[in-house]
């Protein structure tokens, strides 16, 4: 599903290149559940962003379902993202002015779905994550765990084939973290490919395999 070839990413820091990703080669099959681990600053988030099309590498090739993503026009890329990927943030990043319901609905609006279709999907999501009773609340009225669940529901609303999560449990207590992880496992069993960044060995174990990063490079397992 995902094939990265010789990916380089650097920042220009005072005349010198500071490499964040160095010659990354990675293959991820459909249905996989990958955990990325590594010390802080090793480039995990950057890698995830490159995969999630939120960031561009400076060099290298990226094939997503056989398509040369970096060669695509911005519009095509956005379309690809909309139809295949969902993103879960560490600090949830819900939109403060929107209710739970509307937050989940937002990506569907951008996909130009009709209001009937949106209603059905959002209702389904609310139901699935057990937050029907919270649908009219605003993010500030929810606990961190609840917010992250809404974040996940929002990411899944577009029924993505690939779910990207950057430290999804980073701001949660361990009980909440476990709930999210078992949810991920369930999703993966239902056929969603998942890539998560995590600092916790325990969370990594929910995945099918773990990739270690050090100084922008992948370490063999």
């Amino acid at each position, binding site marked *: 599903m995902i094939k990265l070839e010789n990916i380089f990413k650097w920042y220009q820091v005072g005349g010198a290149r500071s490499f964040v990703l160095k010659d990354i080669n990675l293959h991820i099959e459909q249905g996989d559940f990958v955990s990325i681990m590594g010390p802080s600053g090793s480039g995990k988030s950057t890698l995830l*962003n490159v995969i999630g099309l*939120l*960031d561009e590498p400076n060099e290298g090739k990226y094939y997503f379902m056989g398509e040369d993503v970096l060669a695509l026009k911005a*519009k095509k890329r*956005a379309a690809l*993202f*909309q139809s295949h990927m969902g*993103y879960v*943030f560490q600090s949830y*990043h*819900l*939109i*403060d*002015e*929107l209710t739970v319901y*509307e937050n989940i*609905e*937002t*990506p569907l*609006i*951008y*996909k*130009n779905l009709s209001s009937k279709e949106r209603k059905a999907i959002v209702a389904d999501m609310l139901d699935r994550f057990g937050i029907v009773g919270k649908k009219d609340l605003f993010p500030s009225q929810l606990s961190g765990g609840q917010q992250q669940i809404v974040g996940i529901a*929002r990411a899944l609303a*577009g029924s993505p084939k690939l779910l990207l999560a950057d430290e999804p449990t980073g701001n949660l207590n361990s009980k909440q973290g476990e709930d999210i992880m078992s949810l991920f496992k369930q999703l993966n069993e239902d056929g969603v490919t998942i890539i998560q960044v995590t600092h916790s060995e325990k969370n990594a174990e929910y995945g099918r395999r773990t990739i270690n990063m050090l100084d922008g490079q992948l370490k063999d397992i």
Partner: protein
Amino acid sequence: MIKHFFITAIRHLSKHKIHTLLNVWGLALAIACCLFIYTFIVYQLGFDRFHQKSDRIFMVVQDLKLEQLEHSKGGSYAMYTAIEKEIPQVEHVTLYMDKQELTLKIDNKLFKTEGKAAFTNATYFEILNFPWLRGDVQQLNEPNTVALTKSIAERYFGTADVIGKTIWVESQHPVTVVGIIDDSRKNSDFRSEIYFSLASVKGLKGITEDSFFNNWGYTHTSNNILMSLHQPNTKSLVEKSLHDLVAKHWHKDVLEYYNYKLLGLPEFHFDKDYGKGTQKSLLIILGSIGLGILGMACVNYINMTSAQQLYRSTEMGIRKALGGTKKQLFLQFTIETLLLSLIALILAWLLFFIAFDWANKYLFLTDPIQRIPLGSFLMISLLLWWGIALLTSIYPSLFLKQLHIQTGIKKLALGRWNFTQRTLVVLQNSIALLLVTGTIVIVSQVRYLKNTDKGFDRSSVLIIPIKNQMWAQKEKVSNLLRENPAIISYSFCDNPPSYDKVWGGTVQFDDSTEWETWAPRFAIGDSSYLSTFGIHLLAGDNFNQDMENPQFLINETMLHKLGYTQAQDIIGKNLMAGGLNDQHKGKIIGVVADFSTHSLNEAIAPTVLGYNETRFKNVAIKYAGTASSRLLNTLEQQWKILYPNEVFEYHFYDEQIANLYKKEALLEKLIWIAASLSIIISIFGFLGLISVIIAKRTKEIGIRKVLGSSNVGIFQLLAKDFIRWILIAFLISAPIAWYLLSKWLEDFTYHITLSWWMFVLTGIIGILTTLLTISFQSFKAAKTNPVNSLRDE
């Protein structure tokens, strides 16, 4: 999708209440101001353009060819009849004698016509479009008939249903109301409220001589000859025919002195020489001010939106990460802008209607403006709405273009206050300060015009108009004025100094039999003229009241114009003053110090003072100190006995002089309002900015306080930027203001000089308002316990 955007927009606007309020009110004020100015401009530009034939309606004007051309309008009855009979290119022609002062008696109540009466015939209504609501226009060709506008009929009779009723003119002549006229259109300079038939002019005006009807020279500026041509391009042909008629019926020598022209009726309102002289530049200035103020409000909006970037970049980053395209995000901003400016527009309508009624009552007084048709009002509103939305969308669209998802989410896009925004704030305040300096200078100049007496004394003088019919009782009036101890001096006269209508005519000086090629102005009164108006006699004696052996005084300018430097040398010389005394040659008996006969918009001209009782129109009364109200009471009672059929009318002389500067006074008030509005809007801007800046720097302020900074220190920290902006704005505005205002002042014959204090005052006003504006929030921020602001972490 749109619904979603609406919900977000409304939530967003209500979340940032202060900003929304400031933006909405700022925009509303600016829009209302634009609507108002637009209405004013459209009204002014529309003068006499609504007549169906407006492009082929003309009036007769003429130039008297002296050293300087003397311009005038109007003509004689004889000219009017000749044009009607003998120039085939003329479709219709009428004599429209406006500004008539008559006393009407209706149901035993007396009314002055206050210049709202006219004599004309049915043809007038063929040329101009003032539709008749009732009655038959043709009846206005009959003697002793009158047509009234609906408004005046209602004022006189309480109803517009008055066809067939009788009005007594001067309590002697009964005339019958034959028509009611629609007066919903007010922007015409050729409009009256009371139209007497031209056929009754002889009786009603008490015209005894036939020369009024036959003599070509019997001209008067209010005897307007209005005509419509079959073809507008035959104008010069008709002008030529007019000259031919003058040569044929009057005298061909007349053409050596006079040049006749046709002036297009719609041009009259702006024409400086013959017409009202409304300044187009005033309209341009107003238009620019309106746009400037609108620009200021937009700057506020842009600044506040961009300052909200603080909160919004994250939101936009997330939205992008959720798959929102640039177009969709932009649409969201646009909807927000449209919504906000729509609210502002609706508020602006409210403000506009309030301001409109207020302005007609207190600002325009006797020349109320009219609303523009609803259609064009909505059009311009729509245009403003979209214009604002467009202008204020520029920033968000730039912002979105630059926004990267990553930087957005990480709040890296905040940046610092960038160059453009600072420039906008400075620019905005430059406009405000420019208007402040403008106000200071214009107010000073208008004060100066209104209050400066050049060579005479206006204080404690009353002017009472006296009509033709009233002269019979002149001796009695004279007696009772002489006996009143509160009266120091009184003078029967035509024109007091600083008057709007001043006669003039050429003279033969000394033994010459040639008329001079220039025409001095006349000050016509009796021999108390000097003492009543405090005019200084420099040499010689006061003039007598003998029309057989006239004596004249001249002013210094006239002395010099005649080539003399010493007053002694000219005393005793002969003077024939055409128009002042056409029968007898007189003698110059003295020289007075220069005094202004006109408004200060004209330089003091060579002036001859003399006696001619047929020209007298007023009696001017100089009274002792503060006795005016008791004196007025007494005079009114005495008047009622002397003139039972007259309304007692009087003017305070200083008010009458102030009335000469109506145009300037209007400009003064308008600039006041504009400057206040601009200051309010920039205050709004600063209020918005300071709240954003404080929000951004809360943590910094907390840390500084923990480190030992005082409240004043924090205030200084926050105020520093604002003071810097205001100072830069001041430096930009000062030279521009200096340039524009000295240009403006140059147009005045007598004007103040720009001086440093006007600019210093502007600066002080700017800095004080700024400090006051930001002080409340700044001190609040400085005083908060740092623990509160740091605990969030």
